[in-house]
């Protein structure tokens, strides 16, 4: 019979000063859970781990194999042996969670954190009838909006893999945002609850996610927390929660790209962090390094067409209001003040004149360089 060596993390805080690894020889048969049960039945009944359904629905058995997060009952031993070419398989408890004993970790904290995001339906009485014998109508298409999020089985794989959890104690965890987002896109959930969820998500670290996408890769159930977090951020900005640096950054991008077709490197620190000094320092540093900078980025070619497309997309998504037009108008004004003409005329004229035209020269003269 083919066998493999499992190097299993052992630690009983009552007995052991420090954790250690214990080697077990197990058959390469069935799943990793089968191997652990084999140990318990035949080699060492004192090994502690959680398992219940043995068919990947209960979320009990997440752990790490050679550093990679795995669901024990979903992971064939054969696959592990092939992947690691017969090397010993180091089995560790999940990260970022206190070890209770061996592979068993304390999951109360992430559950408590999740609770702060109102991860439950708060019914809108205009949609959900209060009469218990009255059905609420929901069209099959509506279920699509949260079809992935509802698969979360609280296995905490994503929590273990998450970089933001590592860095930021208060960070609620990928799964928590997904479970909260599920109600943000449910028509039955009342608007006031949606608002609150965004507020709590922000104070729970919504803008701290570094978008490393690890959560998305480790989730055994196809939940995509990284995407849900992006969508939550979008909602936060749309709902006017723009006072966080992350939100301001997003707004900065949207505004400047709309106004000029480019982001404004110089204004980024000022607009995001309110740091005026940084602009001056940056300008100086750029100049010293010979990098061209413009106070107002030169409008790109075809800007008007680009704006049309942008508006079309935004209005389709019902997000046109995301644009701060007063801000955009201010930028337009800066441009037209400099050129003594409105921005449309300028862009048109740049086009008509083509390369070597007067305006281009003037632009060059003003800001230097050709940024086509």
């Amino acid at each position, binding site marked *: 019979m083919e066998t493999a060596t499992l190097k299993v993390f052992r630690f*009983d*805080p*009552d*007995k052991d000063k420090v954790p250690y690894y214990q080697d077990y020889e197990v058959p390469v048969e*069935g*799943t990793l859970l089968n191997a652990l049960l084999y140990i*318990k*039945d*035949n080699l060492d*009944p*004192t*090994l*502690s*781990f*959680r*398992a*219940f*359904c*043995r*068919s*990947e*629905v*209960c*979320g*009990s058995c997440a752990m790490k194999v050679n550093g990679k997060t795995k669901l024990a009952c979903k992971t*064939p031993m054969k696959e592990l042996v092939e992947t690691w070419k017969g090397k010993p398989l180091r089995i560790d408890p999940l990260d970022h969670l206190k070890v*209770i*004993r061996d592979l*068993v970790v304390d*999951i*109360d904290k992430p559950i408590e954190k999740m*609770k702060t995001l*109102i*991860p*439950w*339906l*708060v*019914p809108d009485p205009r949609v*959900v*009838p209060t009469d*218990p*014998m*009255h*059905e*609420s*109508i*929901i*069209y*099959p298409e*509506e*279920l699509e909006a*949260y079809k992935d999020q*509802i*698969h*979360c*089985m*609280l296995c905490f794989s994503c929590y273990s893999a998450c970089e933001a959890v590592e860095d930021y104690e208060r960070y609620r965890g990928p799964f928590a945002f997904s479970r909260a987002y599920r*109600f943000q896109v*449910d028509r*039955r959930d009342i608007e006031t609850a949606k608002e609150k969820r965004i507020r709590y998500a922000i104070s729970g670290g919504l803008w701290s996610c570094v978008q490393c996408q690890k959560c998305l890769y480790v989730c055994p159930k196809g939940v995509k927390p990284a995407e849900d977090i992006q969508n939550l951020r979008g909602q936060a900005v749309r709902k006017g929660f723009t006072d966080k640096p992350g939100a301001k950054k997003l707004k900065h991008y949207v505004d400047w790209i709309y106004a000029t077709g480019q982001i404004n490197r110089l204004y980024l620190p000022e607009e995001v962090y309110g740091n005026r000094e940084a602009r001056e320092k940056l300008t100086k540093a750029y100049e010293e390094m010979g990098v061209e900078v413009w106070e107002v980025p030169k409008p790109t070619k075809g800007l008007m067409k680009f704006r049309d497309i942008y508006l079309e997309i935004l209005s389709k998504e019902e997000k046109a209001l995301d644009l701060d037009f007063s801000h955009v108008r201010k930028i337009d004004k800066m441009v037209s003040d400099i050129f003594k003409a409105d921005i449309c005329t300028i862009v048109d004229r740049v086009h008509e004149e083509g390369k070597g035209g007067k305006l281009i020269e003037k632009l060059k003269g003003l800001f230097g360089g050709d940024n086509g």
Partner: protein
Amino acid sequence: MLEYDIVIVGGGGAGLYAALWAAENTILKVAVMTKVYPTRSHTGAAEGGINAVLTHSIGDSPEAHAYDTVKGSDFLADQDAVDIMCKMGAAVIYDIAHRGVPFSRRPDGRIAQRPFGGASFPRTCYAADKTGFYILQTLYEQCLKNNVTFLNEWFLLSIIHNGERVEGLTAWDIRNGGVHLIKTKAVILATGGHARIYWNRTSNALGNTGDGTAAALRAGLPLKDMEFIQFHPTGLAKTGILVTEGARGEGGYLRNRDGERFMKRYAPEKMELAPRDIVARAIQTEIDEGRGCGPRGDYICLDLTHLGEERINERLPQTREHAILYEGVDPVREPIPIAPTAHYSMGGIDTDKLGRTGIKGLYAAGECACVSVHGANRLGGNSLLDVLVYGRLTALEAVKYADEAPETNPSVAKQKDDERRILELMESEGKEKLPELRRELGETMMKHFGVFREESSMKKGLEKLMEIRERAKHVKVHDTGKRFNTDLISVLEFLNLVDLAPAVAVPAIERRESRGSHARRDYPNRDDKNFLKHSVVELKNGEYKLSWKPVKITKFPPEERKY
């Protein structure tokens, strides 16, 4: 000592729904005690769906549902209770839908329903093929919303009562170790089923060991209809893990080694959609008579290939995943090897039509209870309904009772007792090995009390069970740690199994007829004259005592059960 007004033992569908209804209807102190975190409970594994007649179920009616249930039960269900359950169907479905359960919908936005075995109308509501999972997750969310107190990873040991009313419980705190005495006015047992007595061949989770049922038996409470264990016809051949009935509901075929759709010989009209017991027996007969598939002829083929990849992915994604992972077979291309697997315990703690036991303040709901709404055979999709209806009813009963009940005063004797018992297990010389004995138990149950039963075999089986029960006293807990001692838990669970197995065997031998899931080769027919009655088992001075109890028949007189 911990103190509550109501303790709900179990965090599955029944326990959580009870907790929710209690929390919303009282300011009393309510706690849910559960040996695994609530969302791990086995309710999460229910795939197929939940039966209920909804307002848009044209042509269907709660009476029709009740009739199907009674007929499915082979007329052993109590009809007054069935009536209550079926009438509450729409109310509980709409309630959980309003709380967020993402039921699959028809194009007009109403809850979709599909046909299920033994039902005369398509009345099984479903949420893709993870109905139980979504229900459990939603109920958990709603409990969090209502700030329900959870004692997570606590293991019920004993029920304390004074012969008249319940006084408290003892429990082991798995995480920190230690036996605790809990004072409470009311207890709802919602600890799930005990199909793990068939250790090696069951669709159930590792921990479905009937702990609450065994504790009730030891506390002197009667268990009812324990001989009735449902075998699901379609367990994966290698592991017993379930292939949902939905697979046949969507149009899957059962074929024997000759490729024949053999159900035409057993249930010509309903074919694959006949009730579970009939399909399970058909499969077992095919296997026993040498028409099984595979090199050893020990399984049958469930063929989904004609449904096409798209339909399988849309309607049966989990079935496909499990077949690939645990059987190594992709149902899109090949038929799935299946054989009957122990699946559901119809029997359990004897309760009346409102979930009350003979002890005041003590209730049972869900699979650990026997009301009885399932009689000799449960229809697919009726268990989740039972779980919700009785979770809710017992919660309301418990609230009403605890509101007025006087303080209790549980003695510490039981706590001391349990402490000693656990210490003894750790200090035992360990003549017997848990894994071996457990395997023997499972094999004995499957061999002598499986799909087909027969007197002389069962008598041998019972002897063996009593022997295993004796030997179980010499099992040792090797792990002496306090913290998260899973060795201790496994042994405690096993001891519950060995207490329950004879409670299944004794009435199985004495019920000399075939009814529902209880199929006797020596008595192939139903015998209403002598056995249209519930069996009742009690443990008195270490002996299993059997008695009988009448069945409530209101609307539907017994008739032959044909499909």
